[in-house]
């Protein structure tokens, strides 16, 4: 297994390199001179200052050298200056990161909690009306764009029924001591139940909208994997030993079905991250996604690409984690 892990790591490094190249190219493709853009907001600058900054950022050097400068700075956490905030991009990202992280994790958890049991259940009830209904729901889940589902949820639960809030992370006026930036955690740690409830309510609709497609695909995959597992000989033997249907399904079939599902979920996180930007816009969620969209409109290229880079790196790391998890769960790879 060690050999497989090392190979996986080396692939990771190459991909990280590739991501950095692409983001770098994005930045260079941006119209306008980067330095002038940076200084533009700060008022007039002398020609000497412009030249100095150009030299500092290595803009007077050939492209490959510029790339190396870029990598060197990125590795140290320097992603340039956010034009509209006049602060380092990394700082701005750090400020808005917890909001997006919390929403994404909550969305993932919610999606899995719904998709996995439903997928198993659909496989057990194969061919029944419930299964057909499940397939229809899955189709709908895959065909609904996240932002449209978000708007429908806003319309239904926010405005018509007025059950849930539709913007922001927490009710105006609820005080919460920020420890980690994760409101659910912070409120739990300080035993602030009002804040917990408020934060939870604010998370529900955006997480639902964000996770729906992912949940639909995961449910479909789980069902397929379960059906595949249930066809295996060891299921016949397990039943021949007199094990109950439930034991057969959970202990035998599900364990094997989860292995391919783990890989799929890793890929689904990519879909989650993609949908994140539109969902945050729909729900006015103060996170990186909405920030990125605003930055695009404001032509704040360094911030846009800093966020794009972060999302890509996150996705790559998540896939690495799921690949390792796959290796660990699959005994044939682990020991063999």
């Amino acid at each position, binding site marked *: 297994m060690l050999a497989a892990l090392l190979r996986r790591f080396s692939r990771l490094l190459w*991909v990280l390199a590739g991501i950095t190249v692409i983001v770098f190219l994005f930045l260079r493709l941006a119209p306008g001179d980067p330095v002038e853009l940076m200084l533009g907001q700060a008022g007039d600058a002398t020609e000497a200052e412009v030249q100095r900054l150009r030299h500092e950022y290595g803009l007077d050097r050939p492209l490959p050298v510029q790339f190396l400068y870029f990598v060197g700075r990125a590795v140290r956490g320097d992603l340039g200056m956010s034009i509209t905030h006049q602060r380092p991009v990394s700082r701005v990202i750090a400020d808005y990161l917890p909001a997006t992280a919390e929403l994404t994790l909550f969305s993932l958890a919610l999606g899995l909690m719904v998709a996995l049991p439903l997928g198993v259940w659909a496989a057990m009830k194969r061919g029944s009306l419930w299964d057909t209904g499940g397939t229809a729901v899955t189709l709908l889940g895959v065909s609904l764009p996240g932002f449209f589902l978000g708007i429908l949820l806003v319309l239904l639960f926010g405005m018509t029924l007025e059950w849930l809030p539709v913007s922001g992370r927490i009710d105006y006026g609820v005080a919460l001591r920020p420890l980690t930036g994760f409101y659910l955690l912070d409120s739990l740690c300080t035993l602030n139940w009002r804040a917990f409830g408020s934060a939870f309510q604010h998370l529900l609709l955006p997480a639902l909208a964000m996770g729906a497609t992912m949940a639909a695909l995961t449910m479909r995959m789980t069902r397929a994997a379960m059906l595949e597992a249930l066809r295996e000989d060891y299921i016949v033997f397990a039943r021949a030993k007199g094990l109950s249907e439930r034991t057969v399904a959970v202990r035998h079939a599900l364990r094997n079905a989860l292995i391919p599902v783990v890989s799929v979920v890793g890929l689904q996180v*990519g879909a989650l991250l993609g949908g994140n930007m539109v969902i945050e816009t729909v729900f006015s969620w103060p996170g990186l996604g909405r920030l990125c969209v605003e930055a695009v409109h404001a032509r704040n290229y360094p911030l846009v690409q800093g966020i794009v880079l972060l999302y890509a790196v996150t996705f790559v790391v998540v896939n690495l984690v799921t690949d390792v998890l796959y290796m660990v769960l699959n005994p044939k790879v682990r020991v063999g």
Partner: protein
Amino acid sequence: MRELVVVWGQLRRNKAAAVAGVALALLVAAALAAPVLAPHDPLEGDLSVRLAPPVWSGGTWAHPLGCDQHGRDVLSRLLHGARVSIFVGLVVVLASAALGTALGLLAGYYGGWCDRVISWLVDTLLAFPYLVFAIGMMAVLGAGLVNIVATLTLKGWVPFCRVVRGDTLVVRTREHVAAAKALGAGDGYILRREILPSVLPSVLVLATLTVATVIIMEASLSFLGLGVQPPTPTWGGMIAEGRNYILNQWWLSTLPGVAIVAVVMSTNLFGEGLREALDPRLHD
């Protein structure tokens, strides 16, 4: 040709896919005929019928689906918006399929450095979630139809490449390929006549399903204001514009969304039906 007949028969039997296929054909026809079909000019507004409700909510048949805040007929805008969505969907998928298939064939057939470079490119592009990549590129290129098509194609070719590469690796070890080589066939001939036909079914299925993905991408980008710019009507753009009026004039945002869902669902159903029809039959 024989195979086409078998597939067609298979498809006809799958009712859901058949219905979906018909629905799609109608939608495409409607979109193409939009300039003729649409009752009003999608760009010209009549402020006297501003925010008129649809026909089931108290409106008139002159504007069956109501009007937006500028007095523009929603039905006409929906039809014209369909043109954008379907155009982008088809062009991006065709270009992606062509590019991806070509690169996949090369990578799978020649292996070695060619494969390593292409695979690296594939892995790298896959690291970006589709919409994130699109937003990043559109930020840099600027909005517009050509830019959207280019951006979506730039990442859209990747799934095709992976599938074709995988299939090529399998097919190239088959007997008919070895036989052709033994007869002195050149690489180009083998790729075109021996490998490509075996690979096409997967490409076709993937293409159909990708149309759905691309339409959602285009709508998302338009929703964010990064797509084809107003005043050209786009479904995503209409949803965005209708948000301010969501409480009382909910149809402004909802109807374009329903249109998107209808097209995407039909495409998915048809694609799944196609996959079932093609799958075990042509792959041996």
